[in-house]
């Protein structure tokens, strides 16, 4: 029987890691993700896992050690946040380019400067083009469920790409929620045996990994990597359905919330989706046709799913918890535009940047967004960007 426990997202990441029982974890602590590997290192010290825990001196080394381990064909996990993720930058590309199925818990936190330890999505949004699959979580339960599914997605023969599973810093990483934690044996059956891969330590069958790849082969390898990401489009919903069939919680690229007959909708990622759903409920009680699309998977970007979900909506507000500082929009907005460009029925779109550096997002903020959207519906005139919750 699964257990109902009270846990934070950091605690369930550590718990999932214990249940996965990986061969190697290499990590360096950083607020607000420190607890993930701190709790896990206690499991190692107590002999509850077989894991070789490598306490490295930086995140650059953490990812490098994970790459070395994963290149030996063993199951490898890690966790980080913000500046730590930024410090892994060049190694993130090595992990995906070498097709190493590393799974990483990322606790979303604002990037410096100014220095800030609280939540926004600027860290993982900055890493959006590094070839990793990115799965966002709305709550603690999703953080746990996504992490387990990530192992299956990363290790699948047709994908073989690293996966980062995110959770919102402090809002989820440090807040208690009642969650259902599966039995160890159930998790082990779900993730299965680590699929056999080549090992660079296999001296009987030596090979070269990561050779210099100039004008004549680099392009082919990148094309191959792009195909792996494309293949994950088929796999992710299958794993989400299998997870649902077995454990009752179904997952897909996105969750449609009261979208069917909606005239107005917002697209949102992470924990604020929960707050926004409450606002949708209130407006629905007032008879207003509003809905919400919660995007769970940002990489690969499920353009067809987005198009189908949004093309019949009249006005869509896109909620960006990161600013691209590009004089146009945040990072989610252009991807939604791209998804809808081929549609005959183009909704009016507008981008809202909110919650930077952990700025509190209240129901009133979401209500304000909806009233803006109603105004656009009435006048037929949109604008491209507005900042929500900042002192003007």
């Amino acid at each position, binding site marked *: 029987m699964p257990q109902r426990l009270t846990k934070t997202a950091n605690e369930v990441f550590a718990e999932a890691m214990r249940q996965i029982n990986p061969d190697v974890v290499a990590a360096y602590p950083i607020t607000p993700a420190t607890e993930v590997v701190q709790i896990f290192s206690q499991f190692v010290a107590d002999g509850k896992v077989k894991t070789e825990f490598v306490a490295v001196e930086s995140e650059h080394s953490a990812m490098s050690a994970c790459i070395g381990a994963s290149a030996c064909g063993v199951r490898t996990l890690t966790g980080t946040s913000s500046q730590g993720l930024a410090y892994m930058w060049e190694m993130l590309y090595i992990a995906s*380019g*070498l*097709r*190493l199925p590393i799974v990483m818990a990322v606790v979303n936190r604002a990037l410096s400067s100014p220095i800030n330890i609280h939540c926004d999505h600027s860290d993982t949004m900055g890493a959006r083009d590094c070839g990793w699959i990115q799965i966002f979580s709305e709550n603690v339960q999703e953080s746990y469920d996504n992490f387990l599914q990530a192992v299956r997605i990363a290790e699948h023969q047709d994908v*073989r790409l690293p996966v980062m599973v995110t959770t919102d810093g402090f809002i989820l990483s440090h807040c208690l929620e009642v969650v259902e934690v599966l039995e160890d044996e159930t998790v082990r059956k779900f993730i299965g045996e680590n699929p056999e891969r*080549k090992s660079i330590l296999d001296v009987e069958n*030596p*090979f*070269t*990994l*990561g*050779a210099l*790849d100039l004008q*004549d*082969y680099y392009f*082919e*390898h990148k*094309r*191959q990597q792009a*195909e*792996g990401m494309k293949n994950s489009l088929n796999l992710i919903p299958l794993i989400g359905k299998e997870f649902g069939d077995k454990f009752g919680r179904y997952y897909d690229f996105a969750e449609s919330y009261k979208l069917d007959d909606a005239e107005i909708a917002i697209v949102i990622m992470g924990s604020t989706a929960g707050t926004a759903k409450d606002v949708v409920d209130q407006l629905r009680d007032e008879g207003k046709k509003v809905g919400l699309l919660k995007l769970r998977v940002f990489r690969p970007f499920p353009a067809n799913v987005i198009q189908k979900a949004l093309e019949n909506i009249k006005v869509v507000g896109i909620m960006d918890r990161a600013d691209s500082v590009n004089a146009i929009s945040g990072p989610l907005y252009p991807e939604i535009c791209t998804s809808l460009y081929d549609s005959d029925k183009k909704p009016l779109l507008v981008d809202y940047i909110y919650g930077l550096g952990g700025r509190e997002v209240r129901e009133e903020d979401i209500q304000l967004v909806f009233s803006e959207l109603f105004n656009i519906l009435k006048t037929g005139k949109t604008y491209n960007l507005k900042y929500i919750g900042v002192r003007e």
Partner: protein
Amino acid sequence: MEEKKLTWKQLPQGDVLEAGTSLKFKTGNWRSIKPVHIPEKCINCLICWMACPDMAVKTKDDKFSHFDYDFCKGCGICAHECPTEAIKMEKEGK
């Protein structure tokens, strides 16, 4: 004859190659100066063999044999380390 290059579908997954490919990559043509051995000064201490970063000093019966010019890049470390000045660096094509 033109080399037949593999397509992205034909390549093994990831940047994977057979082992020992550096043997096929003759780096000796990078050289602008080359080491020349002077047998009458050589005491066969093999410091050059230890110091060579490219394993281009070859021995036979524990004695200096020859330089492998397929791989010697002409860095000159051997000449620099030689205690008896038994290796001199000469311009290529001299």
